[in-house]
């Protein structure tokens, strides 16, 4: 174990050195001006511009360069010259992911034990998924590029991961489906087999309003606090209204149509002006439609749900960058045991990997062909953007279905084991009624939890 630990730290250290080398080398590829790296929201140049405007007591939003929160200027503005901040942010991100992974693993093992399936994970010598996830995050070329290319996405990713971390430490996060436990509680009520654990489990599923109310109260307090601070900052420059228009309005109405790796710019460049509002609503509703069904289906795995949400939002964002992909690919590493374990395979993993490599190499070449050489056109670049979007969709669909079938398999195993140990012909069918009821209840509860997490993210981002 110590050797493994050492290897992790060695690789992490190597990644930091690699970043430092890349940062202090002359920038041949001009990464900070690449459309893949810096979007209007994450470009450090724009932030520096906003900071400069603020220093010369102008509105930071003048000239439509800067579109972030005014508070971010106070935090990051003085640091714009130092790219070391982003390296530190990346390392912190990786460490946070590692801690999240640890929490997930502990709770996963606990749940397995509670289901009396503990024999299986021990046998297969689980890979330390937390180390894999952290190293995937650190060595992902996307992360490195967005760190070296001086975009603010490492900082934004830090906000997201930090809120995830907070959510994970407060409530024990990942469980096999709750249905299992419900069945189990009533099945094993007679036999005293790990009775206490079951009871605890049962207690956890009971929905209570108290933590939700508490969370809502605190988030309201926090948001008011943040808004007041923002209002103080921009009170001379048009107040909060201007700020909302320039930050959230800029994100929602997609006025900047410069090419990026998303698909919206092309679409809104082509669409007729009088349909624009309609399609804006359609595109943004798209994300909202997915929130509830996913929450119901994946209510037993809030952390995985968070991964799915992040992947979807980075796909449908108005200004996506590779930094977003870096975040969800890092989080995907947390579930490597579930997704590629002995129970279930992600069949397309190799294919996805190849597409990922291919698209990320092809996209800059297409951009070059269009912008610099002038022999291609916008369709060339947009084709790779579409391929990239499809790749993300396949990734999300595959990982969700793999996760669900993993849980199904667990359930089968546990039922088989259960029946074996009891050697009874006790049918579990008649329990289904009560089970669905509890499921819906717990789904609603966890959905609210998830919303809380997401809100949390949003608040942290708005700083």
């Amino acid at each position: 174990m110590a050797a493994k630990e050492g290897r992790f730290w060695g690789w992490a250290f190597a990644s930091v050195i690699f970043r430092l080398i890349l940062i202090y080398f002359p920038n041949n590829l001009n990464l900070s001006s690449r459309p893949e790296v810096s979007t209007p929201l994450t470009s450090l140049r724009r932030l520096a511009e906003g900071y400069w405007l603020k220093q010369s007591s102008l509105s930071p939003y003048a000239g439509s360069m800067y579109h972030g929160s005014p508070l971010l200027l106070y935090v990051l503005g003085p640091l714009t010259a130092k790219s070391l901040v982003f390296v530190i942010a990346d390392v912190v991100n990786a460490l946070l992911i590692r801690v999240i992974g640890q929490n997930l693993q502990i709770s996963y093992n606990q749940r397995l034990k509670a289901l009396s399936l503990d024999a299986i994970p021990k046998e297969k010598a689980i890979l330390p998924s937390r180390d894999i996830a952290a190293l995937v995050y650190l060595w992902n070329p996307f992360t490195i590029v967005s760190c070296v290319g001086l975009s603010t996405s490492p900082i934004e990713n830090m906000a997201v991961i930090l809120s995830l971390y907070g959510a994970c430490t407060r409530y024990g996060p990942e469980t096999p489906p709750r249905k299992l436990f419900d069945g189990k509680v009533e099945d094993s009520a007679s036999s005293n087999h790990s009775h206490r654990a079951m009871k605890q489990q049962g207690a956890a599923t009971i929905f209570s309003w108290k933590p939700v109310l508490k969370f809502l109260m605190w988030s309201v307090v926090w948001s008011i606090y943040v808004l007041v601070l923002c209002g103080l900052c921009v009170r001379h420059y048009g107040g909060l209204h201007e700020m909302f228009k320039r930050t959230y309005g800029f994100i929602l109405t997609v006025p900047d149509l410069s090419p990026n790796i998303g698909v919206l710019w092309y679409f809104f460049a082509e669409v007729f002006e009088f349909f624009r509002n309609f399609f804006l609503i359609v595109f943004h509703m798209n994300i909202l439609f997915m929130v509830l069904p996913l929450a119901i289906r994946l209510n037993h795995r809030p952390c995985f749900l968070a991964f799915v949400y992040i992947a979807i939002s980075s796909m449908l964002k108005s200004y996506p960058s590779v930094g977003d992909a870096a975040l969800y690919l890092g989080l995907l590493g947390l579930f490597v045991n579930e997704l590629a374990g002995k129970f279930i395979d992600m069949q397309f993993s190799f294919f996805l990997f190849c597409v990922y490599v291919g698209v990320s190499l092809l996209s800059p070449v297409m951009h070059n062909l269009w912008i610099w050489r002038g022999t291609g056109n916008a369709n060339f670049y947009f084709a790779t953007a579409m391929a990239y979007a499809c790749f993300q969709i396949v990734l999300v669909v595959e990982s969700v279905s793999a996760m669900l079938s993993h849980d199904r398999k667990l359930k089968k195993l546990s039922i088989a084991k259960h029946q074996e140990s009891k050697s009874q012909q006790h049918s579990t069918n008649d329990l289904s009624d009560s089970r669905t009821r509890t499921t819906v209840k717990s789904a609603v509860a966890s959905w609210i939890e998830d919303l809380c997490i997401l809100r949390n993210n949003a608040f942290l981002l708005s700083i």
Partner: protein
Amino acid sequence: MAETEAPRPRQRPIVRLGIFLISHSFSFSVVCCTAGVLALLLLPILAKNTYISENALMPGSANPMLSNQDVLEANRFVKDLIALNSKPRGSGIESQRLIAQYMKDLGAEVNYHKFHPQITQFHPLQFFSSPDSGTVERNISCSFHGVNTVGITRAPRGDGKEAIVLVTPYNSQKIKQAEALSLGTAYSVFSLLSRVTWLAKDIIWLVSDSQHGEYAAVSAWLRDYHIPMFTRLHTVNAETCPDINYLYDVRDNSVTGRKIYDGFKRAGTMAAALVIKVVDRSETFDDNLNIYAEASNGQMPNLDLINIVNYLAVHRQGFRVKVEKLWSLLDSKWLKNLGELFESVGQVVSSINPQWKFGIPAADYTEGIATLASSLYNQALGVPTGPHGAFRDYQVDAITLELSPRASVDKIIRQNDFLLRGGRLIEGVILSVNNLLEKFHQSFFLYLLTSPGKFVSVGVYMIAFALLVAPLPMVAASLYADAINLNSSQNNEKTVADEPGTALRSLKWVNAAKKVFVVHLWGSVVSLLPYFICQIPNRSPTVSFIIWFLLSVLSFFIMFLILASPFSHAKESQLHLREWAILKSVTMSATFIGLCLMSVINFSTAELGGLLLVPMCLMAQPMRRDIRVGSLSTLSRLAYNLVFCLIGFPPVTFVLLKGAFEGFNSINVGDFWCWVESLWAWSSATYLYIGMVHLPCWVLCIHILFHHC
């Protein structure tokens, strides 16, 4: 590719199709590869006639205005230039002064442009970045500079936002008759254009000083035109270099009294550029016009530019238009037979239905193939075929027109006729380009020429390439699916899954991917090595090549040692049989990605590389298995593998190709080094392709071949 396992009762049709393709991957790959090669050979037949797709161009719609008066003026100019040769001292400066004087007399704005040819640097990603990133402050010696002379005629009807460029390269040290003629042609057009009223775009006449190479002068001028330099370079020059001081001293007491502006003069963005050259080949039949179009990395100018030149030259001025051919292919036996075969097929087809147009005469076919081969070769090399290549880096469409007169131009009447026709051709082209409202954009940028009037567009030649590389992902998927299935069935039989490696059987490919990645990393190290080797003083090409080879081998072993951990790790799980299959499937995927990427950057490189790599990749199999079985088919496969792996090694490929075209007598080891050096001096993407796609793929194929399974 759908590598689904565990047959379900009902599968979606696309999955079923995928499974069908994968299960018949062998026959499909044979069919696809043959079809790919056949489609490449069919390209001259599939070529379409060129047509002018931009309506605004309207070539030949006006009568040429270039008169004998202009030609006589030009003749005087040519005579004066040649007369300079007999003067003893400083003829370089004298010739520039003379040209400037003539330009000024036409009422043009004139300035000199001093430049220092850029020292060749190792800049492998140049094709990828914008052209400005290469400029570095250099240490300059006075003896090593050139002076371009630039004349600009402002358009009476234009807003000064656009310009058309005429380039005439000449050697200022020794002016030859042909060069003087090319200057004369340009002068006749320039003198006409300074008088006409219809001009809407400024005309820039760049007389480039080609004593350090034609390309270097033009590219230096373009660099300064597009990227203003705010340095002291200019003043330093004036202080230290007596020649240039002399240039500026004389300008004051020149006859007209008007000063020559010593800054840098600009007109608007360039719509098109024509490089005019005259060569003195004694052709027997006719006045010839050779068109050179290939710029760096196989980029071509817009086809419309070639079209108007071709149209005007053939239909108005009666030139014989040619594009480059690979002459040695013209009299090859098998091509003639192939052409006759296609011709007879075409006859059969047309006898069935006269509507179907298929097949061309055998002679045309051979010519088409020879032109196509030369077109492919020049594009694949990625080295521009003339000074026009420098324009393409700034997205300006440019071609070189190489005029060669029928007989010797000593006779004054012949010369006048030649000047008149050449001048009228260029006048017509400029008139057409002058009509343009936007940049050239209507016609093709991605095409191959099979004759001056026939082209193959990207939509057609991509089919050949797609067919050629299609087997790679298919066979990769089938190998992968087989290996996974085999593995899982083994697991089921044994039901002991206590080995840690097999726990993640769907991530089996990670080890192979690691190996492939390390080899590709090595490939990039190998392609960086020449940068360091070039620092060694006094080395011959042969020595450099040997050093390069040894260092590459050394770095390979070092990387093996340093990154030994993944390999030793992999050894544990090598117990299972199909490890090589997964490695091969990852190799093929990597090759596929590399070839597809290269086909976007430079199609011809990808096509030629694909012809070498695809058969090698598809057939690679461990040697021991073949020997163990020992049947005729396996042994023949073994022989095939060995031959292809030998051919696939880049130096061997180079030697074989060179030997095939130039004979084996003159080959030595250093030639390969010289070739590679020229590739990276021109910052060709082909160099990167060889280092980072071809070589790693070859190493991996060798690895598979010698795999102990």
